[in-house]
């Protein structure tokens, strides 16, 4: 059984911080498709449309019937461990630093044999439950878990290397003034975070929940205004070296399209928080986190962006806000590039209309702040990078994957005939 992970000791500032190394990153183009599903936490393999054969490793042709119509499909996650080994040497630096390392051959219930990482609680020749996740290189890998949950199983070395578990980690929530920010703090506390820094801009301004927030053990209220470069830099100077996870809950949302605005004042406010706010956080906290991707059991591991699903395609009802969120989404992709190889995951949660005051007139279904907060923590615990939350977001993402140009027409032409 997995030993519970002890709380990491206070860092000795005289000791050198381990430089992040990376497991192998190279993949074929089809291998990257596998990684894309793994980033969503999905176990999907190619299935031959003609003969239903499930195929692994990813190919260009069905080896049974030569059909080239291979569809990626979610497959049953059961399997059986039929051979295993414990590696004690590796030519790759990342693994070499983490030996011994358990791998094995799993016969999937869906058919193929796969090579996989093996969780420490899986017994010899036992049945297993497979998951696909991105590893520290950002590429998808398979891990065999015990079929039934075991005690402390999230603390297993090989599983924890794929997740961003908040347990024993120090987390910055950038805006604690909102219900979303406070729900996020609650969920992170429940997940075992050792310290939660909560950013509050203009602390003299009262806000609901402030007294309760300050009382939560492990919570530290910090002055932070993401629209103010000096404020962001000062906070990073104080806690940047011990921020393991950053959850950016700051947002500025206003209804309205471009022609409904007079001048660019509102649009600039949206950009100041949603785009430049993210930019300031990246510049202030990014380099420190990137350098601490392998810093022991509480290494830096995740950067969470909360993005309206309309970041994918403009929705004129919130036209200028969506534009700033599209800019933020694009910057999050840039951040992924900059974090590549560091072991820090960029977790993007695309959500549908949130149950909060600036989205009050929108019809249901909506996402409650608590649900969004729980989803963030679940994604961190599972190591999932791309999350779509709520029926509206799921619908938009589905249409986006199907054809982004059709989606653009659907979202923009729906406005015709409506009163301006």
């Amino acid at each position: 059984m997995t030993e519970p992970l002890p709380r990491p000791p206070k860092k000795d500032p005289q000791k050198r911080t381990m430089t992040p190394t990376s497991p192998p990153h190279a993949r074929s183009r089809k291998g990257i498709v596998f990684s894309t599903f793994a980033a969503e936490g999905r176990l999907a393999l190619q299935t031959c449309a003609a003969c239903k054969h499930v195929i692994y490793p990813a190919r260009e042709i069905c080896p049974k019937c030569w059909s080239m119509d291979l569809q990626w499909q979610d497959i049953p996650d059961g399997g059986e461990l039929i051979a295993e080994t414990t590696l004690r040497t590796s030519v790759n630096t990342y693994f070499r630093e983490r030996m011994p390392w358990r791998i094995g051959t799993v016969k999937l219930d869906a058919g193929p044999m796969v090579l996989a990482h093996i969780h420490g609680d899986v017994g010899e020749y036992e049945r297993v439950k497979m998951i696909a996740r991105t590893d520290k290189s950002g590429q998808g890998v398979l891990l065999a878990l015990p079929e039934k949950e075991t005690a402390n199983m999230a603390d297993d070395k090989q599983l924890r290397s794929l997740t961003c578990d908040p347990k024993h980690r120090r987390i910055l929530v950038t805006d604690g003034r909102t219900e979303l920010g406070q729900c996020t703090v609650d969920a992170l506390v429940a997940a075992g975070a050792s310290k939660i820094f909560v950013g509050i801009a203009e602390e003299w301004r009262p806000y609901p929940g402030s007294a309760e927030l300050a009382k939560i053990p492990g919570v530290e209220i910090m002055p932070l205004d993401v629209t103010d470069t000096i404020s962001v830099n000062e906070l990073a100077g104080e806690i940047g070296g011990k921020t393991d996870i950053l959850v950016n809950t700051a947002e500025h949302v206003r209804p309205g399209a471009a022609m409904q605005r007079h001048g660019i004042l509102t649009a600039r406010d949206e950009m100041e928080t949603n785009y430049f706010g993210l930019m300031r956080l990246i510049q202030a906290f990014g380099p420190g986190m990137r350098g601490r991707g392998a810093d022991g059991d509480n290494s830096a591991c995740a950067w969470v962006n909360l993005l309206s699903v309309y970041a994918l395609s403009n929705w004129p009802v919130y036209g200028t806000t969506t534009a700033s969120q599209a800019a933020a989404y694009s910057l999050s992709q840039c951040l992924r590039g900059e974090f590549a190889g560091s072991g820090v995951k960029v977790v993007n949660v695309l959500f549908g209309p949130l149950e909060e005051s600036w989205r009050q007139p929108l019809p249901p279904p909506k996402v409650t702040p608590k649900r969004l907060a729980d989803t963030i923590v679940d994604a961190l615990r599972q190591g999932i990078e791309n999350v779509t939350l709520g029926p509206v977001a799921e619908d938009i993402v589905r249409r986006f994957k199907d054809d982004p140009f059709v989606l653009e027409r659907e979202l923009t032409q729906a406005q015709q005939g409506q009163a301006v």
Partner: protein
Amino acid sequence: MARKKFKRAGYAGVVVAAPVSVPYERFSPEPAHWWLARALSELGKRTGLSPEDIDGLCVSSFTLFPDTAAGITQHFGLTPRWLDHVPTGGASGVITLRRAARAVQSGDANIVACIAGDTNHVDSFRAMLTTFSRFSQDASYPYGSGGPNGSFSLMTSHHMKSCGTQREDFGKICVAQRVNALQYPDALMKSPLTLEQYMDARLIADPIVLFDCVMPCAGAEAYVVMREDDAQANNLPYANILSTIERHNAFPDDPVQIRGGWALDKDEFWSMAGVKPDQVDLLQTYDDYPVISVMQMEDLGFCEKGAASEFIQANTLTYDGTFPHNTSGGQLSVGQAGAAGGFLGLVEAIRQLTGEAGENAVPDARIAAVSGFGIINFDRGLCSGAALLERGKND
């Protein structure tokens, strides 16, 4: 598809000669070209053949990039009318022999020089593993990057579980090969090895220990394929080819590799030669790990599948033993020089059958079996091949 019965042609009149092994080095700053060149140069010295005499060339190498056999013709001053580049790694010796023999038999070439070689720079083994194959990049290298140690440890544990082989059996193979290597001048491993040392050795990937693993190195091997009457006219000692087989991606649905293509083709292998396993005087297996040698012994019919433990324990495996095996020490004790590792057993077999095996000569060796195995593309070796050779009549 409907298909009429067709009998494969034998290799009458085609022979192998001029076994050349370039002494291996653990690391070399020279490129693969240098190692292949040295093998060819040595071949010329040994046989008196000049660049004009060679009208066929077959090359096997992993580290020749950016060149292939084509570029080598210009580099080495050859104008061959038949050319091949064999990418089958550990099976390349036997497969090169098959290609070259048919070329000579049909008259497409008169004398084919077969050369294999690779260099080993300080970081080239890691670099090769990183880019070895698409399937390995996608589906095996990211899992701990143990390289072949990882894949073969799974095969070894599976073989032990399914076939009852013991670590002592693998140990006996390794120890016997070390005995052979102590007398083979070019072996890199020169300290004696005992079974106790093997059993107590450092674990590399359970159940594989240090002595189960080959040492990557630089080296080259070569031989020629020519017509028997040409060999006789030039007083070159040679061996005849009695039969050969090759197979790729055999038994793809076996969950973990427990057999290779030999098991599909062994009946033809023996019947083509008109020889039975007990008439074989020496066996050269591809020994990247001892479990693969065991698999070849089983699949070629020297013992039943699952009876290898008993077979190994009932025999002595040194060059002077009851079942002479990997008589130069094999890759386990000589070193693994990339694609040259696929030639090592074949070249040693030719030495044995042409009276050039020196202190390691198997007494009165007449028939040798050679087997190859290569290309761990994902989870298993894809290529297998084997050849039966007989001492030539002019020796």
